[in-house]
């Protein structure tokens, strides 16, 4: 009795209560995130590795950094050139297909990089629609358009990925801007251009800056796109870490690059958070959809039509090309001679079930899909469990949270490649190396997904009014019953969204997975990456078929969130 009441009073103190909730998540993060991170630093100073900084060839550090910054800046600039007019389009105009286009803008957030790379490959690659079409049309022997392994391919894919960030963030801020401010300016004698220059744009600037930094961060840490579309001659920091660690086995150099990468992303993330904070304050509450109009005739109408068409083309063409190409036979299988059977086919999907001789795996490709689902299942369980604990911890009113919250969110800024490298340095020994089953994979996926899950569950939990719980208590519900009757049903949509995030992130995760995957347990992205670069129409077709499956699952998830108006769709 005395013990029970002592424990009870301990639990009444918010700091202790927060600490209890934080216990497991903190242990998980400490062991699986901060330990590998510290190991990277230790690697450079520990005599065990016999590494000497002075012998380091710094050119191999600076040159990828230079390229990373260069491509990220150029990609960001191009993204702004397309994204800002797009934001204007969404904020100001009503046009046919707006809802569809709006749905489409959510897709890139969740599509795995391998899928996007495969999509552009199916559109513009040597076996893609455009090249095969041109070859057939002009009877050419070689694909006329060299898209793969060019700098342009990297830029185009980055623009595809990030344009929607600019559009969503900026057009959101634009529509939320109080229309009366613009009316006030007009009444005070400002021309439309003056109103934009003096009122609208200054109020939008923080949002534009925040979105730009976010785009720059994503371009800076881009891995799959650069690896699959850029080819060997283009090495960003991420790709270089991967090559040095897994191909050159030069762990110390990889560690130096990782630390550099970590510092850069940290600076960018802090900058973005500052800007986001400012952005929230400067926004005067307005009513959305006020001031949205149908474009007038003439020039305005032409510009709007051009914008809508090009946005549709940008967002739809690679994905449509991918899906269509996976159902069409256009070229000879390996070893097949003479007349080619062209036309619709389900062969690429059927072949997923077989383990052909000479295949790249010990297992049929369809097994990769099952592996991916299994890892995703474990990831969902881990992230939802830890995410709920963290959300409840964050709800306690205590100074402890000011310290713990940023520690939790740091994995958001750290790249998956850095995480993967840290994992093989720290955990490539017993007990983990003894398991045949790569348990580290879902753990790594969980670290990547956890911040998103927490950002979904946290606000949902905060939004439950305390009086609802009090009402249930007064009506006779015990604490456990209150949780079951009030918290759980009200959290259910957020839990569903968090689960969808965890699922799609785990299914598509490529960076950390390349470090941790085992030959007998390939995941879908790994399988796609290996098949797509192999000769033979069958391998190519299978890669596209797998990409299409992955795309469908991810798209279904994000469209479900959008369609059900579940919380968290404005997470970005």
């Amino acid at each position: 009795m005395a013990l029970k009441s002592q424990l009870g009073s301990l639990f009444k103190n918010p700091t202790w209560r927060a600490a209890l909730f934080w216990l497991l998540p903190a242990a998980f993060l400490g062991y699986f995130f901060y330990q590998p991170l510290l190991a990277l630093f230790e690697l450079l100073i520990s005599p065990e590795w016999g590494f000497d900084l002075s012998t380091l060839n710094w050119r191999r550090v600076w040159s990828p950094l230079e390229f990373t910054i260069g491509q990220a800046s150029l990609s960001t600039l191009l993204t702004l050139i397309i994204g800002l007019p797009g934001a204007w389009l969404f904020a100001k105009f009503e046009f046919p297909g707006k809802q569809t286009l709006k749905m489409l803008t959510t897709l890139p957030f969740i599509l795995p990089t391998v899928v996007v790379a495969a999509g552009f490959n199916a559109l513009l690659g040597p076996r893609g629609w455009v090249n095969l079409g041109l070859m057939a049309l002009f009877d050419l022997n070689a694909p006329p358009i060299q898209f793969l392994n060019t700098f342009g391919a990297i830029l185009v894919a980055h623009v595809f990925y990030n344009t929607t960030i600019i559009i969503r963030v900026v057009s959101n801020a634009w529509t939320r801007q109080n229309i009366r401010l613009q009316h006030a300016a007009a009444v005070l004698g400002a021309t439309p251009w003056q109103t934009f220059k003096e009122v609208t744009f200054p109020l939008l600037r923080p949002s534009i800056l925040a979105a730009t930094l976010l785009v720059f961060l994503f371009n800076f840490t881009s891995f799959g796109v650069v690896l699959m579309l850029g080819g060997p001659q283009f090495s960003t920091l991420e790709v270089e870490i991967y090559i040095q660690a897994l191909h050159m086995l030069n762990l110390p150099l990889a560690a130096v690059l990782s630390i550099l990468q970590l510092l850069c992303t940290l600076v960018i993330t802090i900058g973005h958070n500052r800007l986001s904070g400012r952005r929230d304050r400067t926004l005067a509450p307005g009513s959305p959809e006020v001031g949205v109009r149908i474009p007038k005739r003439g020039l305005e109408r032409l510009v709007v039509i051009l914008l809508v068409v090009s946005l549709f083309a940008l967002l739809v063409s690679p994905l449509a090309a991918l899906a269509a190409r996976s159902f069409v036979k256009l070229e000879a299988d390996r070893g097949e001679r003479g007349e080619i059977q062209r036309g619709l086919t389900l062969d690429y999907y059927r072949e997923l079930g077989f383990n052909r001789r000479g295949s790249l795996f010990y297992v049929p490709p369809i097994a990769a899909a099952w592996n991916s689902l299994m890892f995703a299942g474990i990831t969902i369980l881990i992230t939802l469990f830890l995410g709920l604990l963290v959300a409840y911890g964050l709800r306690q009113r205590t100074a402890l949270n000011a310290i713990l919250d940023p520690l939790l969110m740091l994995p958001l800024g750290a790249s998956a490649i850095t995480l993967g490298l840290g994992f093989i340095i720290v955990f490539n020994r017993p007990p983990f190396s003894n398991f045949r089953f790569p348990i580290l994979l879902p753990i790594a996926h969980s670290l990547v997904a956890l911040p998103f899950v927490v950002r979904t569950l946290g606000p949902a939990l905060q939004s439950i009014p305390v009086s609802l719980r009090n009402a249930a208590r007064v009506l006779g519900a015990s604490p456990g019953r209150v949780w079951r009757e009030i918290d759980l049903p009200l959290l259910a949509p957020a839990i569903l969204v968090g689960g969808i995030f965890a699922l799609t992130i785990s299914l598509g995760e490529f960076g950390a997975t390349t470090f941790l995957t085992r030959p007998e347990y390939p995941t879908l992205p790994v399988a796609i990456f290996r098949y797509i670069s192999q000769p033979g129409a069958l391998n190519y077709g299978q890669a596209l078929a797998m990409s299409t499956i992955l795309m469908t699952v991810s798209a279904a998830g994000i469209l479900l969130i959008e369609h059900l108006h579940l919380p968290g769709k404005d997470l970005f």
Partner: protein
Amino acid sequence: MLTVHNIEKTYEGKPLLRKVSFDVARDETICLLGPSGSGKSTLLRIIAGLENAEAGQILWAGQDLARVPAHERGFGLMFQDYALFPHRTVAENIAFGLRMQNRPKAEIQARVKTALETITMTAFADRKVTELSGGEQQRVALARALAPEPRLLMLDEPLGALDRTLREQLGRELRRILRETRIPAIYVTHDQEEAYAIADRLLLLHHGVILQSGEPHEFYHHPRNAWVARFFGLGNLIEGTVTGKAPLTVDTPLGLIQGCCESQPLSRGQKTTLLFRPAQAVQDTDNSPNRITGKVIDQVFQGEHYRVTLHINEEAMYFHVMLQKPVRIDEAITVGYDPDDVLCLENEEEME
């Protein structure tokens, strides 16, 4: 039945409730009245067991409730924002407390049906609570609080969020239901009209202490001090200093005024506040020792009388005056007061 004994509570280092004590008898509706921030809602939450007091006791029929958690107290609480469960229908909200008591399904259904009839919302049973209007939500909240047959019902500003017409209508309904159910009730409000209408007994809470308690008419006739008179809007309050004791004479900006005193005797030189009730002003000033003259700055016809506002010594005072025809603005008129009608009140004690 309920005894609140010496409850103390601080909020962010400042005392919110200081040794608050009172009882609620069987069948009694008491009203906790006080301005916002006086600690009324906190006191309710402490009684409900949702918050802990730093000192003092809550007793039910003599039993200390300190170790009884909120969900085992069997009290009903109607929340200011109603706190209806948004994920449940109207009927499910009302059934919630009954389900927590693990009553049989058939009984729950029957009781929910009766409750819906009581609040005349039978047709709304399967509606979402988020689709209801404010008045409908209020009624559902009341039905939900009453359905499990609480030993004590607490209502936290139950009409606060409604517009005036609805308040009067629902206030009547609430009185009827409280009378019929005969459950002891604590009603919290900052609105004195509401308090008069609903309460058998009023408790006036100010700065964390119960300043005065009693039946509604006692507050009107015998306000304990100047703050109470001001809170209830009893009339014009003028400060002054006692200069003579028999008859009691006070030196005020209006001149020397004779008054009466109900509480402890006042001593010479003591500061006091005089209450001039507008309705007790007399127009025949010949026999009156207290005469007040001023220029009319406003007049409003109110049926029985005119409410005339006079400008007197930089102050505006208003009186109910019988007039055959309206007076002119800026015209000077005089009203008188019988010494027995001028109440000398204690000044507000300085709190903090």
